[in-house]
């Protein structure tokens, strides 16, 4: 079922949780709402479920206006971070709850409910645990029961609120992969909330990056990572180095370095570069001089902190440990750096961004880097 969200607003005691959100979700899509806490992602999810009344705007499920429908009428499956399983009921009764509270001719008989619960237990790979109580299950199992319970009512949309937030890292990864497979199998339109960028990028078809009650960017996982539309997205998805430069007549100038650019900006700009896109080049090539301050090995990466010679900005550099250039990374060493892939934004406090900045292309991993102080 496709969902359309139009100019949805919600304010909590003068705090705008949703400040005019527009979003279209296609039928069968798996969407991640990603953002830091307080960004409004959970409020948006709860508004979709009808658990949070909205102040203004419209929510449509397919062609039907759902804005004023009650929670029950919306028929959405909702999965809570802490599972919210009914502790006094067996797993089977938990899954059958949604069917057992139906009224009139819609209400299946007991055998049918049991049958459906068995099917769903099989779907979430927990056959044989139907007679257990939630307290007898592990966290991952509980979350799968919660999912089965939500699916039992044949929801129009499946909504998950930080579904893996309460689980440990290993179970979380397995469950993530498993949820993706389950989604491909059932094809239910699914929206999930997360603050974990890795989770969003790995699981979702499209990612909605939110900040302060607004949508910063909507795009496929590749789009939001490779072409961040705003400094916030750039910073939130992976780490970033920032330093100042100037655009003049199609040229980006940083100290003595001059690079071609088709950026529509002109004048002072801020350059955003991910640590692994700051390449070490030959001393004879054009680039920025820097001095290595510290070197650290983290898993498969070698990370170095360095200081730009011309303005003292701190930057991070990241290399694969197999890269022969890691030999150059010793504290005190002089390097020449070239931003290979970067984004240009107006400097902080400057004019608001009107056009999409140009970002060339990008690659993979990330780390949390120091913010450069210009």
């Amino acid at each position: 079922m496709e969902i359309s969200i139009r100019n949805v607003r919600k304010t909590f005691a003068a705090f705008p949780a949703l400040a005019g959100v527009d979003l279209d979700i296609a039928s069968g899509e798996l969407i991640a709402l990603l953002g830091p806490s307080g960004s409004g992602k959970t409020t948006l999810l709860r508004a979709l479920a009808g658990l949070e009344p909205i102040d203004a705007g419209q929510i449509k499920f397919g062609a039907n206006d759902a804005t004023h429908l009650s929670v029950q009428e919306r028929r959405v499956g909702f999965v809570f971070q802490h599972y919210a399983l009914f502790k006094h009921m067996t797993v089977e009764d938990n899954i059958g709850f949604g069917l057992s509270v139906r009224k009139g001719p819609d209400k299946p008989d007991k055998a049918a409910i049991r049958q459906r619960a068995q099917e769903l237990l099989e779907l979430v790979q927990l056959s044989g645990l139907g007679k257990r109580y939630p307290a007898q299950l592990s966290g991952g199992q509980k979350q799968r029961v919660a999912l089965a319970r939500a699916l039992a009512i044949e929801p129009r949309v499946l909504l998950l609120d930080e579904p893996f937030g309460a689980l440990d890292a290993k179970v979380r990864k397995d469950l993530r992969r498993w949820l993706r497979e389950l989604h491909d199998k059932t094809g239910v339109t699914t929206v999930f909330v997360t603050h974990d960028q890795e989770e969003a990028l790995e699981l979702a078809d499209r990612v909605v990056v939110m900040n302060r009650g607004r949508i910063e960017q909507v795009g496929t996982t590749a789009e939001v990572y490779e072409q961040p539309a705003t400094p916030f997205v750039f910073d939130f998805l992976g780490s970033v180095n920032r330093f100042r430069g100037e655009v003049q007549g199609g040229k980006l100038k940083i100290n003595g370095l001059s690079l071609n650019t088709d950026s529509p900006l002109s004048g002072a700009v801020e350059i955003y570069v991910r640590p692994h896109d700051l390449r070490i080049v030959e001393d004879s090539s054009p680039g920025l001089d820097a001095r290595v301050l510290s070197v650290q090995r983290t898993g498969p990466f070698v990370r170095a902190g360095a200081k730009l010679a011309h303005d003292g900005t701190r930057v991070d550099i990241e290399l694969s440990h197999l890269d022969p250039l890691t030999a150059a990374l010793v504290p005190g060493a002089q390097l020449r750096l070239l931003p290979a892939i970067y984004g240009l934004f107006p400097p902080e406090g400057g004019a608001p961004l009107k056009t999409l900045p140009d970002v060339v292309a990008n690659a993979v991993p990330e780390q949390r880097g120091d913010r450069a102080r210009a």
Partner: protein
Amino acid sequence: MSQPRDHSLQDPPALPPEFGTGPLVRKNSAITEPAWVRWLLIGSALGFLSLFLLLPLASVFTEALRDGWGTYVSALREPDAYSAVKLTLLAAAIAVPLNLVFGVAAAWCIAKFEFRGKQLLISLIDLPFSVSPVVAGLVYVLIFGAHGWAGGWLAEHDIKIIFAVPGIALATIFVTFPFIARELIPLMQEQGTDDEQAALTLGAGGFRTFWRVTLPNIKWGLLYGVLLCNARAFGEFGAVSVVSGHIRGQTNTLPLHIEILYNEYAFAAAFAVASLLAALALVTLALKTFLEWRYADQLAAARRH
């Protein structure tokens, strides 16, 4: 479909051999006191408990039986005593169910909703704890008594509240109001609203959600609150004393009856009736202990997410 790894169903790994299986040996002598200090502390605590709690309780029963079983039984079979028992049970039977409804409603309101004046409501619920029961009784006399605000109107319509059963029931309700609400508020606050919201998204209406989700979640706490409320309803003296009028055989509850007997120097009879009240308290205590044990278990299970 790949099988998600499930760590919960595997047996825990065997303990390495150095852990052994021998009896546990107390090795932490560094953090315990010497024996004589321990015995002194335990002994003084026990002594205090027996002096102030066990001894009075035992004396109630010995005093009651001082003149033998005959006197004891006849004191209980006396018509006034019988009617006092009946009235006490009646007052509790009115007050407890009403406070059950009010208490659950108030706790539900406070724990599950945000609204203006919530703190005020919480303070109001605590009012009966902080106000002296005598004052509470006097307030009722002031409102419903012959010279009270509503006194004239009530007399015209021939409705008796003060010096009658309704007044006693009202006073009991007032005094026992906080017990159930106070018991439920922290429990319901801790449980949050996720379960209820889950039930709503699954299509359950408000009433079904309450009946099938909320109530089972609070049942042990609720029973515990009812027991406390009931114990207090049986034993309430001050507020009831003011509104009852002490009419023998009509408006005397058990505690009032005991006081009258005592003032008339009928010590054996007074203690006999008191032993009945004490026995009721002991039963309540036993039930409460049992429930606490059950309820702790449930709470632990609820926390084991």
